[in-house]
């Protein structure tokens, strides 16, 4: 932890942090400001025109009032994206928590623990697209799963919904992003004072009581951080929806990408601002549950 004496020595902190800060100023802050500004610009078929109008927003929410009680496109899209968020969140939380719990409390040797944690981490360092493509030979019409099910007479016709479907999108999300749950929850669990576990044990707690009354509450920071990661990734994703959904499933991120491929920057920016707002809303709710900074 920072020692008070450090202040008097060496290069001032802000100088050391300057290059790091400049990268974020140039490639994150300014771009975000530009997104907000351009979302109020006008546009025609081939260029964006500086202005201050709400055309892009009006178009984005087109029909939201007139079509009632039916839902307009953007609400349908966000509802569908939120549904994926919920499904993927529940699954990654369950799997991630279980894996982290096993690693933190059932593996006794520290070396084994680190090796097994690495085993969970290594796929995170490889390509997401390739990990998505890898499901094709398993889930395709003539894939291994269908071959096996037909062969064992569970089904007569190959299942069509295994690939390029909502199922395969959710599966790919869980496959790709459970790591974002495992790592922070494992980190939280490793910081739990082992004497608390012993105290619970000495007081006669069963393993289940220990899990629900001691470990779960103390893992809350990790759970919150992992949840923020997973939910925001699914909210903003367009590649997984594209590759695994066979370009059939709408998502909040894809709505932006579609506008961009038509070079309609202001509507893309307006959609980006809406997506940002939705994402920030989710994080604000989660931040109420736990102060992220404190828990690192």
């Amino acid at each position, binding site marked *: *932890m920072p020692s008070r004496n450090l202040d008097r020595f060496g290069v001032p902190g802000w100088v050391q942090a300057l*290059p790091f800060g400049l990268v974020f100023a140039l490639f994150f802050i300014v771009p975000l400001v530009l997104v907000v500004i351009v979302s109020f610009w006008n546009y025609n078929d081939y260029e964006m025109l500086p202005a201050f109008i709400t055309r892009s927003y009006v178009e984005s929410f087109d029909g939201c009032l007139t079509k009632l009680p039916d839902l307009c496109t953007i609400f349908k899209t966000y509802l569908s994206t939120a549904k994926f968020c919920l499904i993927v969140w529940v699954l990654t939380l369950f799997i991630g928590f279980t894996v982290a719990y096993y690693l933190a409390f059932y593996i006794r040797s520290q070396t084994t623990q680190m090796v097994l944690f690495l085993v969970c981490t290594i796929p995170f360092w490889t390509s997401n697209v390739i990990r998505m*493509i890898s499901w094709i030979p398993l889930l395709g019409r003539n894939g291994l799963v269908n071959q096996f099910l037909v062969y064992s007479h569970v089904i007569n016709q190959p299942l069509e919904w295994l690939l390029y479907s909502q199922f395969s999108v959710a599966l790919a999300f869980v496959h790709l992003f459970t790591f974002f749950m495992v790592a922070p929850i494992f980190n939280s669990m490793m910081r739990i004072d082992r004497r608390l576990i012993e105290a619970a044990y000495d007081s006669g707690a069963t393993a289940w009581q220990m899990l629900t009354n001691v470990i779960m509450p103390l893992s809350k920071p990790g759970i919150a951080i992992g949840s923020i990661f997973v939910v925001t990734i699914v909210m903003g994703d367009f590649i997984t929806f594209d590759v695994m959904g066979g370009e059939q499933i709408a998502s909040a991120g894809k709505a932006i990408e579609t506008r961009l491929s038509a070079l309609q920057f202001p509507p893309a920016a307006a959609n980006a601002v809406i997506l940002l707002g939705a994402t920030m809303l989710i994080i604000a709710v989660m931040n109420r549950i736990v102060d992220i900074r404190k828990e690192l």
Partner: protein
Amino acid sequence: MNEVRSPAFYALSLFFALFVLFLYGPTIVIFVLSFQGPTGGLTFPLNGISVHWFEKLMAGGGIVDIGSAFRRSLELGLVVMVLTVVLSLLAGLAFRKRFFGSNLLFFVTVASLIVPSIVTSLGIALEFRLLDDVIKNYGPAWIADGFQTSMGNFTSGLGAHLTWTLPFGLLVMFAIFNRFDGRFEEAARDQGATPWQTLRYVILPIIVPSLVGVGLFGFTLSWDEIARSSQVMGEHNTLPMELQGLTTTVTTPEIYALGTSTTTVSFAVIAVALFAIGLLRARQSRFGSDAGKA
């Protein structure tokens, strides 16, 4: 520590084993299928075993110029790696002191992880498009004449990748310095070491294995990045972007061969990094302090 393993242990071990199978199974499947015979298709069975699809890949067989995309991604990854290590280290050192705006910088760094990549990518694209307009319309003639775009792998592309790798770099630095024993530095300072000497001869040798870890994050995250890259690479796509494009057009095992090649690079980098970390750790314990030992 010698009590009998509970049934829960075996149940959880099984769960973990299934999870690992889930993680690695598909990758192993396309690894096997990339050695599909020349007449084989995208699924099992294997029609013989060959390196046909790798040869086709190397030959460039009609699909986009994979070779140069491969090289571009490699170069970009290396540059991102070096910058990630250096900038994260400096920022990590800075965060150990109090400095003006440290809370804000931390907030921005975390926000960069959380803001959807497509939004960041769009913002950077807008930034460079507007910059292009400014240069074309108001720039001096010697720049503006024949000027195409300022967007490219090593301008907007590099920046986009750094907004993704640097937060991970900083978080790893936090983890390092949270466990760092500040008494080493105080001892060095008490012996009259300058701040630079303290950094060079005390701090760096202790944290260098973890810096390799930061570099590993820097390279691999850049090597596989698509979402942030999507709008900002200008005319030259990176390898994963080409790969994504190929998922819809290529219907032969060639795409598996490409996948296997890409994953092999990732695994090689991971192996080298982990090996280096192991070596450095071993060296540390060999030359480390013998205080308190018999």
